């Protein structure tokens, strides 16, 4: 039976992918385990591996095609006994794939089951079959057409790179990502000479820049950048942002933090950011009118306080979510954040780590930024932009005192929350962050 190859859904947020490169040509034999193509997702470039055997009969999208919908037919694998009609059947069947998917999803409620079907629904006339299904026999009828190992390996984003032990060590010593190096050894193995070349090129670049301007560098945008661009453009275009800022005296916080950290091991120490997460969560819990989202016909007030925290990574940012942050103690929040930072830098955050979230925190204090206006991360209604802590003179009881001041600025969606609600949220936050003891209650 001819086997359709579909654009895989490599993450729950992925609705479309780019076909980075075909690794096989039409007419090539494909064996189980062969890499058929490379697909660029919003997080990484993944390889599509075949589990079936056959000849690559048809390729529907060329190298570099962008925006191919998930589950679109991208190629067809032909087995020995296939006829022209079998191939045509697949092409015909695929024309109705969109409907098929909808039907399938409507029929089955279990979320996992849906994704299972979406992944595997590639048999001709799947529509009728799925309509008759009950959960139990889904797996039997859809007999494993092209399963994508990339799906199972999405959690394992570091694709294996062949490099000599020496090349690996030189790269490690010089902080070079081997992904940037093209290997000249057998089967593309990276050897010392490739790193030498890489160094020489860089040295030449530096040397040349003394005498002439560098050329503009054109770099294809990654899917991650595109998603950031798209979502933030929509946010700025559609959401009427309003901004409220407030100065917080964090003398007590600094003292409390020192006190707490005295007894903690280095790797367990609580950061100022952990306090901020806890304070934001508690404030949102106390001012539930601010914990909501605008939905035209209806407003949704969230039942939990899930805080997204922006983490900058190379080429973009992630916003992993501390769920139920209002119920977590500082130590739990701190441990979760440390975990997220490590995962984010390794590109190993799971979709469930960054999906959801009711409100965001963006902290640029460590870069010395006093205050800034952040863009709301839809469908959320607010984001708190946290600035640096610096000593400033303030007047307390008619006396000038030097205190540690941290300026925080709220960006709010005016469709969902009004200035007064935002102000109450900020006031609550200020009360907590200035007196961290209150957070414990």
């Amino acid at each position, binding site marked *: 039976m001819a086997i359709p190859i579909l654009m895989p859904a490599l993450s729950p947020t992925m609705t479309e992918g780019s076909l980075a490169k075909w690794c096989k040509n039409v007419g090539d034999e494909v064996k189980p385990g062969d890499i058929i193509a490379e697909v660029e997702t919003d997080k990484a470039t993944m390889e599509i591996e075949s589990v079936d055997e056959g000849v690559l009969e048809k390729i529907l999208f060329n190298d570099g095609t962008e925006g191919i919908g998930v589950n679109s037919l991208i190629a067809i694998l032909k087995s020995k006994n296939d006829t022209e009609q079998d191939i045509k059947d697949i092409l015909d069947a695929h024309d109705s794939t969109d409907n098929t998917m909808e039907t399938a999803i409507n029929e089955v409620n279990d979320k996992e089951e849906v994704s299972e079907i979406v992944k595997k629904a590639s048999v001709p006339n799947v529509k009728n079959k799925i309509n008759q299904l009950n959960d139990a026999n889904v797996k039997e009828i859809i007999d494993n057409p092209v399963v994508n190992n990339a799906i199972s390996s999405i959690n394992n984003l570091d694709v294996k790179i062949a490099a*000599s*032990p*020496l*090349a690996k*060590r*030189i790269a490690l*010593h010089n902080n070079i990502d081997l992904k940037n190096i093209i290997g*000249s*050894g*057998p089967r593309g193995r990276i*050897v*010392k*000479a490739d790193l030498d070349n890489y160094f020489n090129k860089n040295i030449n670049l530096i040397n040349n820049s003394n005498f002439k301007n560098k050329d503009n560098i054109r770099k294809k945008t990654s899917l991650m950048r595109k998603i950031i661009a798209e979502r933030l453009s929509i946010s700025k275009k559609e959401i009427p942002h309003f901004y409220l800022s407030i100065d917080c005296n964090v003398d007590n916080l600094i003292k409390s933090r020192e006190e707490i950290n005295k007894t903690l091991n280095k790797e367990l120490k609580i950061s100022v950011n952990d306090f901020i997460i806890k304070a934001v969560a508690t404030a949102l819990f106390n001012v539930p009118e601010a914990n909501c989202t605008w939905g035209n016909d209806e407003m949704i007030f969230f039942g939990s306080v899930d805080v997204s925290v922006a983490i900058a990574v190379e080429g973009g940012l992630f916003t992993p979510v501390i769920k139920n942050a209002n119920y977590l103690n500082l130590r739990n929040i701190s441990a979760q954040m440390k975990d997220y930072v490590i995962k984010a830098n390794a590109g190993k955050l799971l979709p469930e780590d960054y999906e959801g979230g009711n409100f965001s925190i963006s902290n640029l204090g460590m870069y010395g930024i006093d205050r800034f206006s952040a863009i709301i991360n839809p469908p959320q209604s607010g984001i708190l932009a946290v600035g640096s802590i610096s000593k400033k003179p303030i007047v307390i009881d008619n006396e000038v005192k030097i205190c540690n001041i941290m300026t925080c600025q709220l960006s709010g969606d005016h469709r969902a929350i009004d200035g007064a609600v935002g102000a109450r949220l900020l006031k609550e936050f200020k009360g907590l962050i200035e007196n961290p003891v209150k957070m414990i209650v």
Partner: protein
Amino acid sequence: MVKDNTYDLIIIGSGPGGYVAAIRAGQLGLKTALIEESQLGGVCLNWGCIPTKALLRASEIKHLISVSKDFGIKVDNSSYDWKLIIDRSREVADKLSKGVKYLLKKNKIDVINGRGKISGVGRVIVNDNLYTASNIILATGARPKNVNGLLSDSKNIWSYKEAMIPDKKPESILVVGAGAIGIEFASFYSDFGTEVTVIEVQNHILPNEDIDISVFVRDKLEQEGIKILTNTKIKTITSLKDKIDAEFIMQDGTSHKEKYSKSIVSIGIEANIKNIGLETVDVKQENGRIITNHFGETSEKGLFAIGDITGAPWLAHKASHEGINAVNYIFNPKEVTNHKKIIPGCTYSRPQVASIGITEKKANELGVKVKIGVFPLHGNGKAIALGDSNGFVKTIFNKDSGELIGAHMVGPEVTELISTYAIAMQLEATEMDLFNTVFPHPTVSEAIHESVLDAYDRAIHI
């Protein structure tokens, strides 16, 4: 049927570069012709590597008999037959030359007998017949260098060729040049009781080896009774009726005259680039060697050169490797990797010497910070059991990266052991990979492991 003189590939010279390249071409299905004016296998097989190893095996056995009583074995009245020793050496060479003939036939190579000369791009003339090919590989090898007229007279002044087929063993020999060839002959003749003197113009014998090795080998050879004069330059050698008169200038500038039965001149070789038609093509040359790119291609497209004619090191295995690499490139340029060629060198004297990569001195010249390990074979169980623990293994790492940059060995069968280092270097193993490698016990190869460990102060048996 008219014979078709058009080929995919013509190779001129059937030495270890040429015949190996031909077999590879045959494997790939290229229509290939191999041109040889003398014997299949070239100098290496007929007059070099192989027959000398047969001779050195004889001297080794003689030596073992002489020390047999140390092992509790008494051998009374042992003797040798000089002619049979030489004959065996020739038989070994013949056997291998026949083997090459068979292999070429098996791989459907046309062997053309005669001197091949290039006659313009893609054209070769042999015995007045024209052969054409889209690719040509020059593998014409090298010959003893002509310095100060010190050329063989085939009677008393020998090149390597005469030195391996004398009618009778000479009483005394002057070996001029203490490179691998000179030292091997010195070792061979000395073991058979010839009085051997070696003169070398440089500071050390085996001047390409690490100094520690050179000094060690010199010490051993002198213990065997070989006279070694370094920093000594030959002035003249005069061939008399049945002896030679040699005049040389010592380190202090004084001139000495001495008589010897024979002289072996081994002061280097020069590439065979004359009279092969190079003037009919545009081939870049430099200091008497042909310049090629990494895949052996000369400045003339479709014309390749491999082995000795492309320069040092003048070693058979370098030629074979370059031959295979060139053929692979001709067949499919995309399939060939631009890998580094790390060529090990071996000297089969007693004691044997083997090395790869750079010496400690060279590393210092290059300004590389090094970590060096040395392991003496008297700490190696197998060597002691063999009754031959004279020797050591020296390993040099780049201190910063852990790159294995050189290895130098002296002792029993070290020529068989150097491949371990060759693999490690080609795969770019670091010290950690060698630490992690399990070496079998009891073997002399354990000394490699210990030497590596010693570079990081972790050796066990010292």
